[in-house]
């Protein structure tokens, strides 16, 4: 299986002996070209043009994150899986308000399903807060039932916003005081939990983009998010489903097992970021999560979480091609 490589150090990436070398003062590291799925660059990386063309040729995207750990952009290799038919169908589903609304709703439905699963899972063994969580679950369900009445995508997004807010409020009940969200803030995140969520979400976003690259879907045509943003917005759509599955679960683990200390964060309240140590711990968990396998009911074999993202995209292409109706992934385990 191909792996993601996460580079936190500063250094040079170059092509040598038909593979990729990472070099800096501390030494060098050889990345076997056939084992790279994508590269996540957090440090200051220099590239030779040789390595860029080689990675493009091999279809390996590089995702860049800045000093603060925020997503900056990707080197998206030349598309090799092209299907004009699919792109036209994708656009058709965007242009037809009814079809678009239906798909947009599916993403929220999937995200919500997973959110509810998470809440139930973490409230199961906590008798002290069970009742409060139950209340949140009911209000989230009520919001979700309003989704059918939504007539425009923006109103759908508002519902989604409300659900997320309820979800974060519910999480505040579960987490220790130090890790309360209180209010979701971005750029910069203002406390520990917001920092973790932001960092994680950008990872899911990039991973999904890498997976889109390996399908014939066009990453710029999206349904829930507007495609006019500068980002590959289809990846934002699909990420919604996987954020609760991957990131929230990782954060639960990190917090519950006390794997983070003050040295994992830098900056102060109001402007807080992950330190190198924190990033390393998070990335290690993330990488392990992607490799974790579960038994897939429909396929009757073990698939990794990373593979699940790809399967989700295949389902989406089937939907726009009219072969099979899209049903978002909701954790069954």
């Amino acid at each position: 299986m191909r792996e993601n490589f996460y580079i936190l150090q500063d250094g040079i990436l170059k092509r040598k002996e038909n593979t990729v070398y990472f070099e800096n003062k501390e030494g060098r590291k050889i990345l076997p070209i056939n084992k790279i799925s994508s590269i996540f660059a957090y440090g200051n990386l220099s590239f030779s043009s040789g390595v860029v063309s080689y990675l493009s040729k091999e279809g390996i995207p590089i995702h860049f994150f800045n000093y603060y750990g925020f997503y900056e952009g990707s080197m998206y290799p030349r598309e090799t899986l092209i299907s004009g038919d699919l792109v036209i169908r994708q656009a058709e589903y965007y242009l037809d308000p009814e079809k678009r609304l239906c798909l947009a709703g599916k993403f929220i439905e999937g995200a919500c399903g997973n959110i509810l699963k998470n809440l139930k899972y973490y409230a199961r063994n906590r008798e002290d807060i069970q009742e409060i969580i139950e209340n949140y679950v009911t209000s989230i369900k009520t919001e979700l039932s309003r989704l059918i009445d939504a007539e425009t995508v923006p109103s759908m997004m508002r519902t989604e916003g409300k659900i997320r807010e309820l979800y974060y409020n519910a999480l505040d009940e579960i987490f220790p005081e130090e890790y309360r969200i209180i209010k979701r803030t971005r750029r910069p995140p203002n406390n520990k939990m917001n920092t973790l969520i932001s960092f994680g979400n950008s990872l899911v976003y990039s991973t999904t983009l890498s997976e889109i690259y390996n399908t014939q879907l066009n990453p710029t045509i999206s349904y829930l998010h507007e495609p006019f943003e500068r980002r590959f917005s289809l990846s934002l759509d699909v990420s919604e489903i996987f954020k609760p599955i991957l990131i929230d679960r990782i954060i639960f683990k990190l917090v519950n097992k006390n794997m983070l200390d003050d040295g994992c964060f830098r900056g102060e309240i109001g402007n807080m970021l992950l330190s190198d140590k924190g990033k390393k711990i998070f990335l290690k968990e993330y990488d392990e999560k992607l490799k974790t396998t579960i038994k897939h009911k429909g396929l009757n074999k073990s698939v990794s979480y990373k593979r699940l993202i790809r399967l989700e995209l295949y389902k989406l292409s089937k939907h726009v091609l009219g072969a099979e109706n899209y049903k978002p992934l909701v954790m069954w385990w």
Partner: protein
Amino acid sequence: MYVVIVYDVGVERVNKVRSFLREYMNWVQNSVFEGELTKAEFLKVKSRLKELIEINHDHIIFYSSRDKKYLGIENLGTPKADTNNII
């Protein structure tokens, strides 16, 4: 599957073998590579190595296991390279 490749080849071919194997696996020691390969990759590696070496002269051993966890790997001393994917 997880494969360990140990090779003993003539000095004029040793570089060729090493640089080829680097494209697929981690170089853990002089003349030793380790890594996860798919069945297809394994076949590809074997057939390419067959072209590179002198069959009557050189010798390569492939140790393979279904999963890394079934190999009891122990270390003593300073490893040549770390195989971590978080750098």
